[in-house]
């Protein structure tokens, strides 16, 4: 049985559906990220799980018990969840230890046990020495750890995180993302994580649910999401990609202006159809290439930009066809107008709808 289940959840403000027909199932102990651009409905979804927002349709259940649904919403304080907020929401009028102990006091955990659990949790997030400080004296990263400790010390049914790293600078963000994953591996709380940052999502998630305009585009493991995006939106949102017209026939993919063919790699499609194809720029190679990349045909360089870590080439099949973006290593230097053989690694090729 799923730990947390969203069934056809819908939230409507007036005529506008900000979340539409969203269904998700989380296994116990799973960490699922809701990923999407701002306005995609991910935070609304999270707040519906938390009980801050009532549903317009559908239902939400924990362990098979419905907590949100038609006409009845269990208030947040009776859901046994905990949440980490974008602003951290550390109470400035309480010390670090008081913040962390709050949920235990509300649950009437006896003093001795409460004290022990707070101390243990503060050690886990490496804040043991700062227990008696007030939040104003802490750095952003430390406040973030307090928020984590406060949310986890109560051993929540479900842990919710709302863009927890968006207020941190880049280095700290990476470090804290690793920290959150480490804590998840240690405690295994069923977790829903909201972010608009795909790197963050890739770093910490078991599965990622990509949302766009209130609808679920795809839910999958990070590897599949990158290499086997099923929709144009997902292909474009996760990493860079080339979206080109292609033709599928007899289990093979053909691209306009290129004589080579690509295998479908088990992806389902009609027997013969024109389709959109997503090809990752890293899966394209200029010049002779081994390593499973298949030769496709001759292309010429239309434009190029040197980005330090790689060359960003724009190439066009000499026989005519869609322009393609290629990421090539710094050592592979080709002038504009130069002709070369293009080969493609089929692992980076996906049929999208």
């Amino acid at each position, binding site marked *: 049985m799923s730990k947390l289940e969203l069934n056809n959840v819908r939230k409507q403000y007036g005529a506008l559906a900000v979340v539409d027909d969203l269904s998700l199932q989380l296994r116990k102990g799973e960490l699922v990220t809701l990923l999407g651009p701002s306005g995609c409905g991910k935070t609304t979804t999270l707040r519906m799980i938390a009980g801050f927002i009532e549903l317009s349709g559908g239902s939400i259940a924990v362990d098979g018990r419905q907590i949100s649904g038609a006409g009845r919403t269990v208030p947040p304080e*009776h859901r046994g969840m905990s949440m980490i907020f974008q602003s951290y929401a550390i109470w400035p009028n309480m010390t670090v230890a008081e913040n962390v102990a709050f949920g235990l006091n509300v649950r009437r955990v006896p003093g001795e046990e409460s004290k022990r*659990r707070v101390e243990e949790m503060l050690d886990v997030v490496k804040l043991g020495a700062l227990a008696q400080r007030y939040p104003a004296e802490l750095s952003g990263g430390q406040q973030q750890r307090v928020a984590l400790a406060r949310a986890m010390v109560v*051993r929540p049914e479900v842990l919710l995180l709302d863009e927890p790293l968006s207020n941190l600078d880049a280095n700290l963000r990476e470090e804290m993302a690793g920290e959150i994953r480490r804590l998840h591996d240690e*405690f295994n709380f069923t977790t829903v994580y909201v972010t608009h940052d795909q790197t963050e999502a890739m770093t910490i998630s078991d599965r990622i649910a990509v949302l766009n305009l209130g609808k679920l585009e795809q839910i999958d493991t990070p590897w599949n999401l990158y290499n086997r995006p099923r929709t144009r939106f997902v292909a474009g949102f996760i990493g860079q990609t080339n979206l080109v017209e292609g033709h599928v026939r007899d289990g093979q993919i053909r691209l306009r202006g290129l004589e080579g063919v690509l295998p479908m790699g088990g992806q389902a499609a009609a027997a013969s159809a024109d389709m959109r194809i997503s090809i990752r720029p890293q899966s394209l190679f200029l010049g002779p290439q081994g390593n499973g990349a298949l030769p496709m045909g001759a292309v010429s360089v239309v434009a190029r930009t040197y980005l330090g870590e790689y060359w960003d080439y724009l190439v066009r099949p000499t026989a005519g066809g869609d322009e393609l973006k290629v990421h090539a290593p710094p050592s592979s230097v080709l002038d504009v107008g130069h002709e070369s053989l293009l080969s493609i690694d089929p692992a980076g090729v996906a049929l999208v709808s």
Partner: protein
Amino acid sequence: MSEAVTIAPPMRARIPNRMGDPAVWLFGTLILLLILLVANPILRLIWDSFHTADGTLSFSSYAAALGRSRNLQALLNSFYLGVAVTAIAIALGVPLALAVSRTNMPARGFTHVSVLAAFVMPNFLGAIAWILLAGPNAGWLNRLWSEVLGTDRGPFNIFSFWGLAFVIALYTYPLIYVFTKSALDLVSTELEDAASIHGAGKLRTLTRVTLPLVLPSIVGAAILIFLESVALYGTPALIAIPAGLNLATTQIVSFFEYPLKVEQAAAFSMPILALTVVMLYLQRRLLARKGFVSVSGKGGERRPFDVGAWKWVLLGYSALVSLLTVVMPLIILVLASLSKAWGRGFSAGNLTFANFYNIFFEQLTVRSALVNTVTYSAVTALVCVAMGMCVAYATQRRITPFPTLIQFLALAPVAVPGLILAIGLYAAYAGPPFSLYGTGALVVVAFTTRFLPIAVTACGAGVRSLNPELEEAVRILGGGRLTALGKVVVPLLNKTLVGAFILVFVICTKELSTAVFLTGPASRVVSVLTLDLSEQGNYESLAAMGVVLVVIVTLVVGIGMRIAGRDFMLRRS
């Protein structure tokens, strides 16, 4: 840590229904209170104006109240008075605001404090002081004048239209100052620099750039002052009645003399009420205009203007204003309170502490008025802050249905002049079934209704400053709404709440117009007693009582400034 992995099920099996949530009951009570305090009196007032005493529908009250030329003249006089007061207040407040906010005038902090003092000073005490200073013949300024110049009598007569306008302006101008100053504080120096770089001189920059930017704020404050002067009763009762000047407010009170004509009072109030509502609406519109970008958000870099020798002129003007509003009145009150007979002037033979002894140990009316004032003000402030907090919280966090309606009800008393509100409260609660006339409860009810908007506004600003996630964090961890209020919201807003408490307390101690015909012999407050003592000519006891009140209020304000910061009273809201 392995045992931490076993997840205890903290979710409670019983899911309480909505009615079990104490927050719902609390905020339901709040709505009921608002209806009792605000909606009922105002509706009752309107109802009474259209009915005769025996309850039949009729317009006879309007005909009787507005059909007499004497009564219409009273409305007109109030209008003229409002215009005159506003003009004087602008002349007093704008230069001071400019000087403190934008120039390098010395002693700016001192000027600011003296404006605060003028705001705190009850206007009826100011009026008494000015009667002692500038009353014809016996006024000390007149006597000084005739002694120095050897003339028969001095030129000052406070018992006149301009005397009245002058005294009212002295204690209302802080509003102009506060509005102008807070707008000026947001004008970036860069805007003025831009004018200078294009060749404008200092005066031109001031008149073409700075003043136009803050003009909406000045006009907004001017409207408030106009309305306040029209609605004021204390100073007019002390000065206009002896001067033979009939004003709207004195006319309303005369409807309450025997034989009581509550319905006529209600009908007579309607034009004033309508004027107030319309002008407040205009004022809101004016201040909400978005065109003046500079008067919002951060002001950028700011430098005081070097005004050269003009700074001494400004300083002289500031000193003169504080002399007229605070220093001279306080000196005269203290001297009079220490005199056997204030008319004999100040000399060793005239010195006595008997007045203070009297008011504390012999004239029990004075002592009980002081005790009443402090008690009612404190209770009102407490109730206002509690209700204001609940209203602000419930409406901003959308806990109750119809938040806009609740907000409207709680702020509606702003648009009802004190005297007129008192008529409504009198009609609603003085007689059976409540029979509150003459009790302290009715005074507290009246003060609470009148000043609830102040508390709501102050608490609203506080609640807005809090990130709602702070409360959501409480709830997701298992605490209810009331836990969030008690453990997080109130502790975080304690300064705001103390500030609002003291602000309401101080304003209550000055309040006369709502109290004047709601108090009975046992519930008399200082402001009402001032009128009685003034009528009896007992200025020595009156001055002593005033001095005691000023000492109490100053102490309270001092405590407030320690807790809530220097500017907690002079904020624009």
